[in-house]
């Protein structure tokens, strides 16, 4: 019972300190305000490299773009956009030429990764643009949104 009382007391202290400090600090979290990040996924127009899911899906259906998965090999192998190539950002410099040798420079490339905060696709798209692929674009949180919209996916057999 003593330990339970201590646990509850520490939780109460954390609640008081957390919410109290948040109320008085100038850069605290606004509890009444609308959460801004929810609308960021498609409203990422500030980044000119980004492409919307609708546009990416349209290019995919018309076979007008090459999709490149920027995640590590293990993530790619566990499931990816059907037909996508894998160029892990961590090894992009060493392995890019092997992947890119058959892709014409004028081809649209759509990079993607997974998660709201994933920056691998942005980094890879920027890298590809610097390499001379002017139509490289990043599909923000691509894998998650691709799956959620039931677009073509590939998974390992078994």
């Amino acid at each position, binding site marked *: 019972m003593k330990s339970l009382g201590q*646990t509850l007391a520490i939780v109460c202290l954390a609640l008081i300190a957390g919410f109290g400090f948040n109320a008085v600090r100038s850069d605290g*979290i606004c509890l009444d305000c609308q959460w801004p990040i929810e609308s960021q996924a498609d409203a990422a127009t500030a980044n000119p490299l980004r492409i919307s899911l609708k546009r990416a899906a349209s290019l995919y259906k018309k076979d007008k773009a090459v999709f490149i998965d920027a995640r590590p090999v293990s993530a790619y192998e566990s499931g990816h956009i059907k037909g996508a190539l894998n160029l892990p950002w961590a090894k992009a410099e060493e392995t890019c030429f092997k992947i890119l040798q058959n892709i014409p420079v004028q081809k649209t490339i759509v990079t993607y990764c*997974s998660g709201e905060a*994933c920056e691998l696709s942005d980094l890879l798209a920027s890298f590809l643009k610097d390499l001379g692929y002017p139509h490289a674009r990043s599909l923000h949180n691509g894998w998650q949104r691709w799956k959620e919209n039931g677009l073509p996916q590939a998974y390992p057999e078994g």
Partner: protein
Amino acid sequence: MAENRYTPTFAETPAEGAASSAKPGRHHLYSKLDRWAFSVLRFIIGGIFVYAAIPKIIEPGAFAKVIYNYQILPNMLVKPAAIMLPWLELFAGAFIILGVWLEGALIIYNLLMLIFIAALIFNTGRGLDIHCGCFSQEPEDMINMGTIIRDLLIFVPAAYLLVRVFAKPAKQTDDR
């Protein structure tokens, strides 16, 4: 709170006491080593949480974004969690270092570590490339197997301290 300060002892049963009286020097050395190891572990384990809590308290908005990206909590709980969690870490860590309310602090510490590890395993398993947000809000700190192993390495000594505290009831007086 001062009377709750925990002081570990090495041999407290009659059998241990009898054995120790036969070899007082050895017992004294073990007891000293035991207390020393316990204190060192407390400082390391507690220090980790204090160190981890500070950047989250400094940048609550960035930490809220990290929690949101884990995609585990309902949206309505993201902001309250971002406000409270760092302070819970801070108090748990500080109390473990100070030896105050040690049982409660270790329960919280171990529960939080279990939650963190489960969240990391869950999100690594479903392939989310998100920032860990464990010790900083820097984007380089992505979740992967390394972050899971790191948390497990922190959890093991924390679990040991918890077992140790409950296995050997705290003495309320300083017997040194």
